[in-house]
């Protein structure tokens, strides 16, 4: 790579803006993208919702995140404009699930806002649903989740050690977002089980404590695998209350092993409810055999606040909530028998929420600042631009204004490459490119 002196100046400018964002405290520790008025306009153009509409409220803090603030933080997080409808749906899903608005983003638990993306939008904006879904590498996965966490600090003031009192937090607080691997799943999409159509795009919000890795590459029967999952769910350390909220992220290999042996989602849930158990002796030795009076937290049966819990020896305690239709999602690469148990916040009585992504048809307004810049540079040589377009495709026409420098106009393929490069961060492309007749 080589750079001109102009490039160097621009890089230094960008670096100083990033530093200024650090000085303002507008960061989660990683660099943030500066938000300009034109970028904000491009994001707001992707939705029909009013900029002042509230997407999530924390009344006890007297603070609210609006569509505008959601956009500012999405920009700072590194999102493209076409991700913004997903970000808004993610906020809606978080609000519908309820934990974020009820104060739990402040909790010592340190939960992460986990997001799962379903439907055709995954392909349109390149959401990773395959290899390394819980790891880095994909812009959409990283920045959509980051948009929410940045706003937690910048909008709600939930900074570590003050209003975010996470004792340790969880690595998922640094961006936990992945796509459902529908193409390699034996079952309908998770969003279809929640009443949406297969070709709807949707987001599921899961406030989670941790993602527990499950090694079962040797499993050859459904029962072997399900007992392994049951044992992973029923660990004593997961229990704060009587039961745990759970969720499965099954690799395609595991999902097909189960499906091929006659297990659908409901049969998997029934098996796990029955077999995810802990004996009362195991609970007693960790001081969790009793239940507290009001919040029904686990504590020793002889604790001053214990009201229940003197179960007989040999008793087995089921750790999954009987009504919990916990999510079972297929994601990851089809290359090994590895899956994950997601430990949701709460007892399992509150289900994760799935919300449809309503993308407005994409308006040319999103990319007008870029096109105006192009127009301006063409005008220096006596030409100008005129444009139209929708849904991510621009028709650009170069026309003659003064035509005093016919040689100054770059050839069509070069101009197309320049326009494509300028539009690339927005997800838009050049369709028809009309050149003037200079003969």
């Amino acid at each position: 790579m080589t750079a001109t002196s102009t490039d160097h100046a621009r890089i230094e400018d960008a670096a100083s803006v990033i530093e200024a964002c650090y000085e303002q405290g507008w960061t989660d520790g990683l660099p943030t993208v500066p938000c300009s008025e034109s970028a904000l306009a491009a994001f707001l153009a992707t939705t029909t919702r009013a900029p002042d509409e509230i997407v999530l409220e924390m009344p006890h803090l007297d603070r609210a995140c609006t569509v505008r603030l959601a956009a500012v933080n999405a920009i700072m997080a590194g999102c493209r404009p076409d991700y913004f409808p997903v970000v808004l749906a993610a906020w809606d899903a978080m609000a519908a699930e309820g934990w974020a608005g009820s104060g739990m983003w402040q909790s010592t638990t340190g939960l992460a806002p986990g997001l799962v993306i379903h439907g055709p939008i995954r392909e349109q904006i390149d959401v990773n649903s395959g290899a390394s879904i819980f790891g880095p590498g994909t812009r959409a996965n990283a920045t959509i989740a980051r948009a929410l966490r940045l706003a937690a600090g910048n909008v709600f003031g939930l900074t570590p050690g003050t209003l975010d009192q996470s004792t340790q937090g969880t690595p998922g607080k640094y961006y936990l977002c992945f796509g459902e691997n529908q193409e390699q799943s034996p079952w309908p999409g998770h969003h279809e089980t929640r009443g949406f159509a297969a070709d709807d795009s949707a987001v599921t919000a899961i406030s989670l404590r941790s993602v527990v890795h499950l090694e079962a590459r040797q499993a050859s029967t459904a029962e072997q695998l399900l007992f392994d999952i049951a044992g992973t769910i029923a660990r004593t350390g997961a229990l704060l209350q009587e039961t745990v909220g759970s969720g499965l992220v099954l690799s395609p290999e595991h999902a097909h092993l189960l499906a091929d042996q006659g297990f659908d989602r409901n049969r998997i849930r029934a098996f796990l409810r029955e077999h995810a158990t802990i004996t009362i002796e195991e609970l007693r030795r960790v001081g969790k055999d009793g239940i507290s009076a009001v919040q029904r937290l686990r504590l020793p049966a002889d604790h001053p606040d214990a009201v229940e819990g003197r179960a007989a020896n040999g008793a087995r305690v089921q750790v999954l909530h009987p009504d919990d239709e916990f999510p079972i999602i297929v994601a990851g690469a089809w290359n090994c028998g590895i899956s994950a148990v997601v430990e949701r916040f709460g007892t399992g009585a509150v289900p994760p929420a799935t919300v449809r992504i309503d993308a407005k048809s994409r308006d040319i307004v999103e990319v007008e600042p870029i096109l105006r810049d192009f127009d301006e540079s063409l005008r220096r040589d006596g030409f100008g631009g005129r444009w139209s377009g929708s849904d991510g495709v621009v028709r650009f026409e170069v026309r003659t204004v003064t035509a005093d420098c016919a040689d100054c106009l770059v050839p069509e393929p070069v101009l197309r490459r320049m326009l494509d490069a300028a539009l690339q961060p927005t997800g838009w492309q050049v369709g028809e490119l009309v050149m003037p007749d200079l003969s």
Partner: protein
Amino acid sequence: MTLLDNGKVNGAQLLNEIAELLVRDHGVTVVGTVAKQWAGQPLEPADRAAIVERTDVVLTAIGDCGSCSAATIADGILLELEGIPTASICTTPFVVTGRAIARSYGLDDYSFVEAEHPVASLDRDGLRGRAETIVSDVVKILVSRQ
């Protein structure tokens, strides 16, 4: 006095221990205990109104986690705004949260009771000891706001 229990482990027990000392040494009458169903949010306005209706002062505990400490301080502030002196109890690590929430209500100097952490794992003797340590702070706050 009304005891406002946020439902956290040992919250009600600590309130009862302190109330016993206030009854014995200060002639306080406890008119009742209100148990919150959800510790992470302040009282619903209707529940707050019911307390305001029947009591002169409130003692509330225990802010010993991120969300419940903020809500415990917010309960105190909201009751004070309706004229009911309130002593909110938070454990030491959550003093910073309490101050942050007080600032968000524009009350930078709002005072509350700090109890040594932890409270949830104390036995009865431990709870009695904690109550004896902080009861004078409870009295000081309630008297200063009368």
